[in-house]
């Protein structure tokens, strides 16, 4: 596997905070879980109505999703297994060469 399979089980989640309260809560959650923000590029840019995509590790994803549910924030899982998506990004020949 590419990158020693380190992204197995990692997820990319989309959230769109609908209110200022939700945006504030999301910022706290992102800080707490030290997420890799795909968009926007900075946690401080997260605001009401803005699309946010976060990459969260396998170990943190369950707790993060629970926090979102407790805060009643809707989310969508864009990529359920990042390693799988990574392997599909390139052809088998490219992947073989890289390995």
């Amino acid at each position, binding site marked *: 596997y*590419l*990158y020693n399979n380190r*992204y197995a089980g990692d997820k*990319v989640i*989309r959230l769109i905070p609908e209110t200022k309260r939700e945006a504030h809560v999301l910022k706290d959650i992102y800080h707490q879980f030290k997420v*890799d*923000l*795909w*968009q*926007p*590029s*900075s946690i*401080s*840019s997260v605001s009401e109505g*803005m*699309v946010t*995509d976060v*990459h969260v590790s396998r170990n943190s994803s369950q707790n993060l999703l629970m926090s979102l549910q407790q805060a009643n924030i809707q989310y969508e899982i*864009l*990529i359920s297994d*990042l390693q799988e*998506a*990574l392997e*599909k*990004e*390139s*052809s088998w*020949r*490219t992947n073989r060469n*890289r390995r």
Partner: protein
Amino acid sequence: SLGDYSYEVYHSLEEIQNWMHHLNKTHSGLIHMLSIGKSYEGRSLFILKLGKRSRHHKRAVWIDCGIHAREWIGPAFCQWFVKEALQTYRSDPAMRRMLNHLYFYIMPVFNVDGYHFSWTSDRFWRKTRSRNSRFRCHGVDANRNWKVKWCDEGASLYPCDDTYCGPFPESEPEVKAVAHFLRKRRKYISAYLSFHAYAQMLLYPYSYKYATIPNFSCVESAAYNAVSALQSAYGVRYRFGPASSTLYVSSGSSMDWAYKTGIPYAFAFELRDTGHFGFLLPESLIKPTCTETMLAVKNITLHLLKKC
């Protein structure tokens, strides 16, 4: 030959640089390779000067890709652009006009250290790889390190953040090298184009504030026509507008710096997609993404050749 190199796969930094060396030898009539400095880790910063040689000064367009390491579709587009230019110079009157009247300075990989790191270690790395003596974290956001409202809104002073602006403006050797190159030639450079991913947008200044640029009507009409041309390929919609309101406020960006330096047309492309694949755009989508983007870039370039 051009035909042996695949433009529909992602390449390592070494492959891209070998390709640049190869074109420099085999297409010397239209290509000249330059090194404009060294990266933090000591790698050469190569650019390609593309266009018909002229004894007189020609205006130029600057194109850079891969400021952010994980945005691989950017460097793929830069390579595609060069390929298209060389392959269609004789057969396409528009391309011939572009290369006869202008030079194109193409930097296929701006953030060479970061790109190599994302290829070998951390696919989702964004920043450069410079080290900070006081913190354990590496890297500066190369699109927050320019001297234009440096480290204001949308950038961070904390070295472990992905939008870390650096200890001072142009602290990153890559940023400093490109800034020096552009500053020296600013009288001749008509457009600055920077390629990122992902959001499907065509952005123009300002990023750092909510305000209208003085030449708004010319820039806006160029952007409108460019996205219309892009959409004509496969129906893919791109939004366009000032970066601050279309995307988000960010200070210290290359696009704002280029504009402030006097380059009248400064654009940042956010290429495909809008989140389904995100940074992991499959190789099968390189061709349509680059084909449509090519139409936009040609449109902008031909707009430059007319007076607005």
